[in-house]
């Protein structure tokens, strides 16, 4: 509750599937008040699981095996179901990946936005619906007064995602968790949705946890980055640190694989191989089979989460010890 403590802190989060322990292992990060943090990584690296675990919204079968998740003074892993429900949709809003399937087809969008206010603020439906209308207007939906009574299938994908965002901010949350909010949308709409999120973040002093695999979005939107690979956090850095002086070979390889508009007719760098399937992770550094800087005698040992500078941390022992320097994006 104190001003200095982070809004959300995740420490040593481990998620297990009965057959595959350590699907997500020892994940730690913090989100400061009003800050935006990106959780990036390839498909299947556990970034969505991590973001869903915060509000304990994991699909059945997956269990949180260890760690602590503290939001604004509440330990979300040990609190009662009632306390958890009070946080869900209240001070923490969630935006899901696919807007079309995250809205109830039998309910008007107004009612779905109003739902959180009915539940958390005990407002009457008519009052909450008026507020829903304002929210629709706020997220840039024209004709809000009529749209309140629309059903989800009457809206386009971009509009549906705006509705989801309106629902997520219905109770003036402190944190919005957005799980790849633009993946299911086409490119022009993506930019609009991200622009909307940024405006809201600034105007409402929101903290945003953005799950994405798009480095362009990260560069545009976020203050800090957590890079995940195969269920591990490999690097935690500010945007500038990540882009200009990355602290992990994986981050560096990711940056190199972004097409550059300034250098035509060059071969695009790729990371060879693919993410190992859960349960077949190598011992030690999980990235080592694909890493060009691989030294089996060093990388086969568990890699500690080491501080590089300030809040910049890396899970590569060779970078931390100074034995290896990896390249970022050239400055300028």
């Amino acid at each position, binding site marked *: 509750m104190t001003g200095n403590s982070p809004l959300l802190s995740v420490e040593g989060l481990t998620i297990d599937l009965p057959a595959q322990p350590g699907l997500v292992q020892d994940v730690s990060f913090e989100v400061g008040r009003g800050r935006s943090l990106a959780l990036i990584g390839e498909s299947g690296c556990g970034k969505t699981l991590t973001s869903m675990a915060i509000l304990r*919204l994991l699909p059945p079968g997956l269990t949180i095996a260890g760690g602590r998740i503290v939001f604004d003074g509440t330990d979300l892993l040990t609190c009662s179901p009632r306390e958890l429900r009070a946080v869900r949709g209240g001070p923490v809003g969630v935006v899901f990946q696919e807007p079309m399937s995250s809205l109830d087809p039998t309910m008007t969008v107004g009612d779905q936005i109003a739902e959180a206010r009915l539940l958390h603020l005990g407002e009457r439906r008519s009052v909450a619906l008026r507020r829903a209308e304002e929210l629709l207007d706020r997220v840039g939906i*024209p004709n809000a007064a009529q749209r309140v009574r629309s059903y989800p299938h009457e809206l386009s994908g971009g509009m549906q995602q705006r509705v989801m965002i309106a629902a997520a901010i219905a109770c003036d949350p402190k944190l919005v968790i957005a799980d790849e909010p633009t993946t299911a949308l086409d490119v022009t709409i993506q930019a609009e949705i991200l622009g909307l999120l940024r405006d809201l973040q600034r105007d409402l002093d929101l903290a945003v946890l953005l799950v994405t695999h798009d480095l362009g979005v990260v560069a545009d939107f976020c203050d800090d980055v957590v890079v995940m690979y195969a269920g591990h956090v490999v690097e935690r850095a500010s945007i500038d640190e990540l882009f200009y002086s990355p602290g992990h070979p994986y981050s560096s390889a990711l940056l190199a694989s972004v097409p550059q508009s300034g250098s035509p007719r060059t071969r695009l760098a790729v990371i060879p191989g693919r993410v190992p399937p859960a349960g077949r992770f190598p011992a030690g550094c999980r990235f080592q089979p694909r890493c060009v800087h691989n030294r089996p005698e060093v990388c086969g040992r568990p890699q500690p989460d080491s501080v590089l500078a300030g809040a910049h941390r890396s899970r590569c022992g060779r970078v931390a010890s100074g034995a290896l320097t990896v390249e970022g994006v050239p400055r300028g």
Partner: protein
Amino acid sequence: MTAAVQQETAPARRSRTRVLREVLRKPAAAVSIGYVLLLVVLAIGGRWIAPHDPDVQDLGNRFAGPSLEHWFGTDDFGRDVASRIINAAAVTISAPAISVGIAVAIGLPLGLWAAVRGGWVDAITGRLADTVLALPALVGALAIVAVLGPGLVTTMIAVGIIFSPAIFRVVRGAALAVTEETFIRAADAVGSSRRRTLWVHVLPNIAAPLLVQTTILMGVALLVEASLSFLGLGVQPPDASWGSMLKAAYANQFDAPYAVVPPGIAMVLTVLAFNTIGDAIRDAVGLRRRT
């Protein structure tokens, strides 16, 4: 842009009644609904609407053919067949209503519970449903009648219990599919409790298959009631049911061969109406899913 938006908002205001409009657009379904409504009116007001007292005998005028005085003729006691058909509408409507009502009252909550809880709850309720389902409705009802004695209400309650697995299975299957949807997780994410999510988000989304199943069971229940009354185990004389009238007509088919026609046709039309409504709802909902 604005033109498109306005064009879209016009139907939005009325879309709560969208399924109903879709159903009524089909002539067959509209006629069926009208027919069922007519039955309901007859069931409630039959005493006043019927041209004659259904129970007054006129033994000098047995097996009279259709005439202006007696539209469908008279039966073996000289009673007016038309009036008896009209009066039997009450039984025709209330018997399926009782049994299907009970089937829903048992099957719906258990189906939801099984779908949401899974595990041993699902296993036990599922096996229970299989057991009851193994019993044909008519045979089960006969067994109950053998124990409790003939009577419309007890038998229809028994039929309702035997029907409940049919509802249970539809509800469980549909609810399982719905609870997998992201919007159920989204409901969790805004802090909705399990029970509230069930009522507010799951139930409306399984309403369509439930309605279809309900209308089909109404038709089956009507036939079960008619069968029991035909066997003399349902409605007791002098009260009439279409089944018991059919039985009387059958016994006297050499004296009055046409007497099987009025109750028979009434029954066929009613079952047909229930099934047509069920089909129309299914189609209307299917249409809605596709858009």
